């Protein structure tokens, strides 16, 4: 799995998205960074001020992000001052948070760092632009806040891991979410639709919600959305819709893999569920499993 994750992340901008709070994104980030450092000097940052107190991979206080020499970190100036690691300031972004301005820093001495980031999609996009074009850092991981799939839309040519924590209590809704993400992340770009000129295309700007379904004309053959993050329907609703028409996106984002964190569910049982639901996407299991 180690080399798979490295290959999936190198020279890409990748978001870590979770299905709920404390799904295990930060724990996965630490693992991914440990793998990546063997090959590149990665940059990482988070979206928003992470208020998650714990991480349910381990049901313990939220793990800190560990940074090692050569890493590039985007966080607030206050967090840089508070860290036991040592940093060189590379850039100060013009975005303020309650915990100071956001900075890009290079780690000179390893240690723990608390991540604070912008919640504004435009700013996230500008940070990624700066990292790619000015600082020439090509491997970027963004620890996204829970359930905020919409953040992926801020960056073109980006990838995402969908980290999904399943437990007995919410298994049905979690599986539904997993199936929905698997389904909607596969719809094509509008540019790839054949004979588009002969089809009735209807565009919905913004989110596709249940209440907007009635707006779609009867003769619509292609429903155009900005990207998959704009779909706010459940699996049944999406399936129903795709029986009548094709959904296409202006911008497509690539799902790298699901990362499955199981609790009180045996892996064998989950494999059966996946088979029963015909989920064919790449699945990584908890890298912390024995």
């Amino acid at each position, binding site marked *: 799995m180690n080399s798979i994750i490295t290959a999936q992340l190198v020279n890409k901008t990748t978001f870590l998205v979770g299905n709920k709070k404390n799904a295990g994104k930060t724990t996965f980030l630490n693992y991914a960074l*440990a793998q990546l450092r063997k090959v590149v000097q990665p940059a990482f940052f988070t979206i928003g001020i992470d208020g998650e107190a714990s991480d349910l991979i381990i049901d313990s206080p939220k793990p800190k992000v560990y940074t090692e020499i050569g890493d590039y970190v985007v966080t607030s100036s206050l967090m*840089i001052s508070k860290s036991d690691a*040592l940093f060189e*300031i*590379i850039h*100060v972004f*013009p975005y303020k948070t309650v915990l100071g301005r956001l900075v890009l820093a290079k780690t000179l001495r390893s240690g723990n760092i608390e991540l604070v980031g912008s919640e504004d999609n435009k700013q996230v996009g500008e940070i990624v632009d700066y990292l790619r074009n000015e600082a020439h850092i090509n491997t970027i991981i963004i620890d996204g806040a829970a359930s905020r799939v919409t953040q992926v839309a801020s960056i073109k040519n980006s990838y995402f891991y969908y980290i999904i924590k399943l*437990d007995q209590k919410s298994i049905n809704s979690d599986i539904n979410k997993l199936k929905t993400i698997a389904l909607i992340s596969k719809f094509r770009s509008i540019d790839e639709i054949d004979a588009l000129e002969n089809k009735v295309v209807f565009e919905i700007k913004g989110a596709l919600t249940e209440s907007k379904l009635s707006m779609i004309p009867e003769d619509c053959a292609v429903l155009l959305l900005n990207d998959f993050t704009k779909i706010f329907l459940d699996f049944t609703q999406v399936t129903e819709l795709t029986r009548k028409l094709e959904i296409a996106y202006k911008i497509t984002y690539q799902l790298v893999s699901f990362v499955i964190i199981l609790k009180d569910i045996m892996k064998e049982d989950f494999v059966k569920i996946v088979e029963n639901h015909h989920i064919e996407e790449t699945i990584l299991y908890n*890298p912390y*499993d024995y």
Partner: protein
Amino acid sequence: MTIKDTMQFVEFNTFYSEYAPLTPYGLMDKNKYHVFTDKEMLISVYNSIGKIVNFINENSFQSDKIEHHLKRISHLNTFERKIFDSSDIFLVKKLLVNFKSIVKLLNDAIKEDLQISFLSEELLIFLSYGGANKETFYLSEEYNDELAENRKKIAETDKFLAEIKKERFQEILEQHSLDFRFRDFIIASENITNNFSSELIYKEVYDKTSLLLKPILPKEYFDLHKKREALLLEEHKLEQEVLMTISEKILAEKAAIIDYINKIVLLDTLFAKSRMAIKYTMIAPVLIDKNATIAIVNGQYLPLANKCAKTDTIYTPLNAEFDDKTCVITGSNMGGKTVLLKTIGFMQLLAQMGFWVPAQKFKTSVFENIHYIGEDLSEKIEGLSSFGFEIYNLTKAINDFGTNTLLLIDEFAKTTNAIEAKAIIAAMLKSFSQKETVWSFVSTHFMELPEFEKVSFYKMKGLDYSEYMKYYNKEQQYSLRERIKLINTFMRFEIIKTDHKDRTYDAIKIAEILGLNDEIIKYTKAYLSENYD
């Protein structure tokens, strides 16, 4: 000065949005929409633009580099604190590095003109201790020997901690095949964990069937870790001392740094204005005494000229000289009266905002107030009709008549009854012409206004009907777009001096070209011949 309405009237932002300072300071200055009324200061700005235009034309490589350095300047955090953090210091250093590079690239003429010099070499060297990259900042141990010693100890401790961990992880790997090198914990099924050593592995319940395993590190590790914590506390204290020293040095040069920021604003905005001057082949306006004439040679109203260029339509620049301060402009519908007012307003705003102007000559004076009175463009006042709004704006403008004022009045009172409207306009002309401080341009459809001393009458040349008739094919079906193009092709957008008796009858011809039906045209002409000469 209130210029919001005039800016909207002349669509100033279509030009202003192209004006692009490169630093956050320059952008903040842009957003203040400064309009200057100090003639000498404006002349000095025009002269500076002249020097920079020459510099850009003759030193494109250096000017590109200056723009590169301007783009790299960030907004500093506040000076209003005693102790700066690393990011504050980084920003100061970055500003100094880039400002120094800019000063080095500028020629002596510009440096002398703008009084620019870099005098903070010593501070910059101090901020570069530790061999940090030119533009980055690092709280180096070179600032303080004790800090150097402390960090050395931390590094040694880190090395020991890593070794202890490595040994313990290896031991666990060999004994239990559990690899903790890249993981802080491992989740494993309960049934395989029975034989794990309780001295090496810590176990806790994860879920009904699994345990969460963590490596147990030796006591030596925790003792060392404690020692590291103490060293970190000491490091923090020493870092604060260094930060205080650096902050004091920066604050000692606060005045110089603020001066650099002011010079950056000046340079950034002047370079941005110069780029516009080069792009649109602009010239410096000529500012004259308050009583001299306003003259424009080939003045381009850029919002329209650019539109015409995009649609492949002919644009006619403005050539005019206005002798009297009260100018009445009449002419056909679609004949360019409003564009004339917009051109004057546009040129005047450019001149007073410190830009060069797109003309071969623009001679004007400085106005303390510029007012547009006409169609309601933005501010809606509940209960006020269009006419009411015009009166409201006129009243506001009259309050400014104590100082030099430019009025751009577009088809005043066109929504009220013609007799009273004409009477008010006549009264305005009489009143304005008696004021030494007021320049007014009044466009109107009303003909045969009374004659007053110091009031000049102009008209737009209008439709060249005979040329149009040679071209027009009655059998052909023209679309509305084609008809508008026809009007623009045969409309002569030139201004000619006339007198108060001049009459222009283009409305019927325009209506005819636009396709009004023959019956109405016929009845209109009959009515005119029955009732007028």
